[in-house]
């Protein structure tokens, strides 16, 4: 199974390019396209209404739009359940109200996003390709960076936790429980819930990172022939490089006869910033410019063969 992420500045045509690639791939393979952008327009592009569940469009192509708000809510609900299970005596308090603030705290949305990606990759084994249409640069880089950042934090926390457990063990040997009523704190690594959970999280993120940085995953960067788009793409290329994520294709979208000079310049600069990465040009559809009816997902250029 191959995983493709479409990234780029807002408005460059990520969704259209993702849809076009999905459409072309689906002629030969089984494809699922997932929109992670909170401002969904996958449904608009394919001209259908998409519910939260995956919707079959053709035999080879299924569509899905992820509801971020719902995801964050579900995630917090799960956590609150664990909390209430652990602290049964707190059930008289209205924990739901207390934790409802958490959904506004920074990071929850990115985390929900990441969880949704992980879940999709894990569960949707029937497909040959999964395409993710991501939100604009800032948010995308933040959630793609999340596994690495989290692993760094978890490593540190595991170290401290281990020291705590070692010291608790020393105390247990020196002092032992003074009477029968005294509660013995966990001092073995396999008994400590915090360490167990940290290790489980660590395993999850390591495997997710391995998938994201692996051979079967690709990042596709979409840009337009203009300076603003070039600058932001530069930042994105740097960000992807820092995170070790595999950039495999550059798509210069909305090329016309009028902006050909600019296109050449932008392509040349992009080629310098991302050496050895293929560049595809997609022209602005004439039919679209004329305002005539057109399948938005059906571009003339071949954008999919790179991945076949």
């Amino acid at each position, binding site marked *: 199974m191959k995983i493709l992420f479409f990234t780029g500045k807002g408005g460059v045509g990520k969704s259209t390019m993702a849809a076009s690639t999905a459409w072309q791939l689906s002629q030969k393979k089984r494809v699922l396209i997932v929109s992670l952008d909170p401002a969904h327009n996958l449904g608009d592009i394919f001209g259908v209404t998409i519910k939260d569940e995956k919707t079959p469009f053709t035999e080879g192509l299924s569509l899905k739009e992820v509801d971020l708000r719902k995801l964050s809510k579900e995630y*917090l609900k799960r956590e609150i359940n*664990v909390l209430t299970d652990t602290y049964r005596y707190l059930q008289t308090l209205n924990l739901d109200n207390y934790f409802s603030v958490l959904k506004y705290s920074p990071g929850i949305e990115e*985390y929900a996003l990441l969880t949704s990606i992980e879940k999709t990759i894990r569960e949707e084994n029937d497909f040959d390709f999964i395409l993710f249409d991501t939100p604009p640069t800032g948010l995308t880089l933040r959630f793609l960076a*999340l596994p690495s950042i989290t692993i760094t934090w978890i490593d540190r926390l595991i170290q401290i936790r281990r020291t*705590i457990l070692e010291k608790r063990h020393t105390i247990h040997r*020196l002092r032992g429980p*003074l009477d029968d009523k005294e509660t013995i704190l966990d001092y073995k690594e396999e008994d400590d819930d915090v360490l167990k*959970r940290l290790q489980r999280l660590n395993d999850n993120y390591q495997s997710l990172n391995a998938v994201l940085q692996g051979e079967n995953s690709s990042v596709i960067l979409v840009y337009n022939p203009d300076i603003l788009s070039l600058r932001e793409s530069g930042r994105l290329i740097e960000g992807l490089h820092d995170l070790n994520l595999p950039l495999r294709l550059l798509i210069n979208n909305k090329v016309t006869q009028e902006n050909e000079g600019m296109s050449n310049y932008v392509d040349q600069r992009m080629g310098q910033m991302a050496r050895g990465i293929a560049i595809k040009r997609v022209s602005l559809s004439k039919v679209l410019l004329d305002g005539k009816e057109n399948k938005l997902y059906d571009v003339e250029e071949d954008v999919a063969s790179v991945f076949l």
Partner: protein
Amino acid sequence: MKFSIPDFFRQFFKGIDAVHRNNAAALTIFEVEELENIFALLLLGSFVGFPSPPTFLAVELLPFMEKELRILNQRAKDSSDMFAEMCGTIGID
């Protein structure tokens, strides 16, 4: 309960033993509590303006952090008199 001399001595020596064992472990106990305090601070430090890990990490571990949270609270209460705290730890009366 009936008073018996052997029982009295047993309890007496048990008490002395407990005191010594407690004294031997006192510094390590203090150290562990400090570490637990740091652990909680690292995880939930955003409350006091520390750079903190991704929020969900705190949320994930929160259910198991009761003891650490108690220590964090206690430390915050005691922080106005750290000198007394240190004296207590080193054993200066």
